């Protein structure tokens, strides 16, 4: 089996990593780029397929040269046999449409994969379009919101459980022929019910971590000429989407006034205590009086 997993670099939105300016705009230069967290589930789904059926997992991304690190992260934290970055200036400022054209062309240079996996939405764009649009170019059967996966190699079919409308309450089972395009849901859980699978998993995890130490040996970078796409159809030129403006979401007005108090400041803490005592003091007095008779 040959699996291709799509991934993207996104700003690390975790507390302590992300940085915003005074106007609430993301400061990209000060915020590290990491692998899109949702792509982990796509990688897990590909790894499960690799454990059960063998073969090869290729991980692909489109983006600046710095995305090599994102591919390394995918290889180290989950699994990859080989890494592929499609990258040149012509691809910059692409919307999801132009990205889909680029990625599908990139995938086609890898041959004819049996399954292509994508994650559900990126943490920055949040559109959820890129996976399905890429598949529109590839023209495979598409299964989205996949939470579990089973492949029958002999029959050449894929059976998946998927969330209907992303709702955990409703799960449907679908079956399709291979090759197929799978969008893994964040609820995706790999399942390894035999010792043999777990031992293979352990081997593969060890291998992929070792490979990630020299990941560049397993990395191929391609520009638009390598993947044979017309520059007019990719990057900013190929993007029909126009972002007219970005407005910060206004903060909900606070109903109460807050005063920040440094816990080390004994005087200020005394004031807090005093305020608390006076706030409950009257009630406490009333209660005592009520209990008096």
């Amino acid at each position, binding site marked *: 089996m040959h699996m291709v997993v799509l991934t993207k670099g996104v700003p690390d939105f975790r507390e302590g990593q992300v940085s915003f300016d005074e106007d609430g705009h993301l400061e990209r230069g000060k915020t590290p780029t990491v692998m899109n967290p949702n792509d982990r589930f796509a990688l897990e789904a590909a790894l499960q397929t690799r454990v059960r059926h063998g073969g090869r997992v290729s991980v692909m991304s489109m983006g600046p040269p710095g995305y090599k690190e994102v591919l390394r992260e995918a290889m180290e934290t989950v699994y990859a046999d080989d890494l592929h970055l499609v990258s040149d200036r012509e691809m910059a400022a692409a919307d999801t449409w132009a990205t889909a054209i680029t990625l599908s062309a990139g995938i086609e240079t890898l041959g004819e994969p049996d399954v292509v996996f994508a994650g559900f939405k990126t943490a920055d764009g949040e559109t959820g379009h890129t996976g399905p649009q890429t598949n529109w170019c590839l023209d495979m059967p598409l299964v989205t919101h996949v939470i579990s996966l089973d492949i029958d190699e002999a029959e050449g079919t894929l059976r998946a459980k998927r969330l209907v409308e992303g709702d955990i309450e409703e799960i449907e089972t679908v079956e399709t022929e291979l090759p197929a395009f799978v969008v893994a849901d964040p609820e995706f859980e790999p399942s*390894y*019910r*035999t*010792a*043999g699978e*777990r*031992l293979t998993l*352990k*081997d593969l995890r060890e291998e992929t971590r070792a490979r990630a130490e020299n990941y560049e040996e397993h990395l191929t970078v391609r520009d638009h000429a390598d993947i044979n796409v017309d520059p007019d159809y990719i990057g900013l030129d190929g993007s029909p989407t126009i972002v007219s403006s970005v407005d910060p979401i206004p903060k909900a007005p606070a109903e109460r006034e807050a005063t920040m108090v440094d816990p080390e400041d004994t005087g200020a803490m005394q004031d807090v205590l005093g305020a608390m005592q006076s706030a409950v003091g009257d009630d406490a007095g009333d209660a005592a009086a009520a209990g008096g008779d």
Partner: protein
Amino acid sequence: MSDYEHYEALVVGAGPGGAAAAATFANYGIETLVLERGVEAGSKNVSGGLIYAEESAPYTIDDLFPGFREAAAERPITKYRIHNIAGDKVESFDLTDLHEHDTEWSDSVLRRKMDSWLEDRVHERTRETGGGLLTGVHVNGLLREEGRIVGVTLDELDPITADIIVAADGVNSELARDAGLMDWDEPDEWFQGVKAVVDMPEDAIADRFDVAEDEGAAHLFSGDLFEGVRGGGFLYTNRDTLSLGTVFHLDSLVAEEAEPHQLLDALLTHPLLAQWLGDDYTELEYSAKLVPDSKKVALREPHFGRLLLVGDAAGQMQAQGPIIKGMNHAVTAGALAAEAYAQAKSRNEPEKAGTRYARKLRSEGVMKKLRPRGYELLRGVAEDDGVTDVVDTVLTSPVGRAGIRALSGRLERLYNVPTLSALMPDTRTPYVTLPTVIAEELGTRVRDQSSVTPLDLEARIGGLTYDTDIGNPHIALRDESYEASGAAVAACPVSAVDFGGGCYREEVVRTNGSEERVVSLDTQPCVECGTCAVVADTEWTHPRGDKGVEFKWG
């Protein structure tokens, strides 16, 4: 059965017994799968811990795992002393001769470090056989077909069949109990140990214990410092930590309604220990473990069909006074079990692996150490309550005291005779009365003052790492009445009377005018020692793989 996943050999538990079995299977080229429920081998394991390599043993841990001592152990133990204590009077004997009897070497160990080192080697060697080692997998019972044991059932995986199953799943072995070979019925068959791992820089250890880099000290403690509970204390030097603990007979602990953590504190704060603990006491980890008393529970035939038991699972823990040996016997038994199967198979009679294994335990002298014949002969008399009372009365009388004084020059030598330790009856006489009288009559006063403030139970529990299996408690109370299960409130090492943060709590329920004392259970702080399985009425299992407590030191 053809539908089940199959391995030739299955080893349950990756402690020293399981590791030895797996390595030996691998040496014979037998396909071997090892299943460990902890997040890493050693994360569920606690021992005192000294590991011995006995001269008389057919297999030792460094035979099976070259480089063990350098990589996985802490310090060679070169000094061994016992301290008889009465109040602040102490009489100390050197037991180095006893310690060195039949000993090739003996090292202190911390189980997380030791077992995780073994894990990597076991995985590597068993992987070559087509098997391997998996962590986070809990084997919860035996798989039977037509009444015969054919494999195991698991929480995380589908059932697995095997031609031979080695249960090295510890003192609370679920496989031994499923097979009907072990139970949790009698408190007097078990000891309970609790331990604190204490931080101490190497140079402080060198100064305070007067040991060089490749030396270490072991100290044992007995006498009147444990409220009359039968048992004693220990202190072992590790590389840059100390292991300090107490071990008591479970029946005695229950009878005295003693709190194990307080008995540990009695040791930690005794003035004798001030010279070693100084004024910078930092406790790194609190732990507890049930210990089988091999004199009573070591199985003579530790097998049933394809199932062979090794180590604590088979009761193979020799605790005879100052002789405390468990891990070495587990290693020997594990290797013998695998060897027995390999030989039985080569003779085309694999079904005889069990009887062959039991025979090896006898012919290699293991059984004789675990169940000394002298103890069996004397037990009837020596453990009679009436006899104990008479002996204790004589010992504490002027006549007895005069006798102890008269023996003074020879007592140390007597303590060093291995066969006498093996004969020691499980009564208060050798654990409490005799050491107390020795200290009173011959001891000198300790002038030091302890400045140790032990952690309270809440802080000890708070310092442990848990991955709680929320909504899926692994222990259930079958009978919550105080009569049936109340003993657990004090005896559980992470519970205490009037402490709300432990596993077991006493509650009074008022119903329709009457009051009832009941016990409630919250397994969150559980350290999986198994004490409550013995002293309370429970449905006891281990947590699922990766779940529950995770010891960092062990």
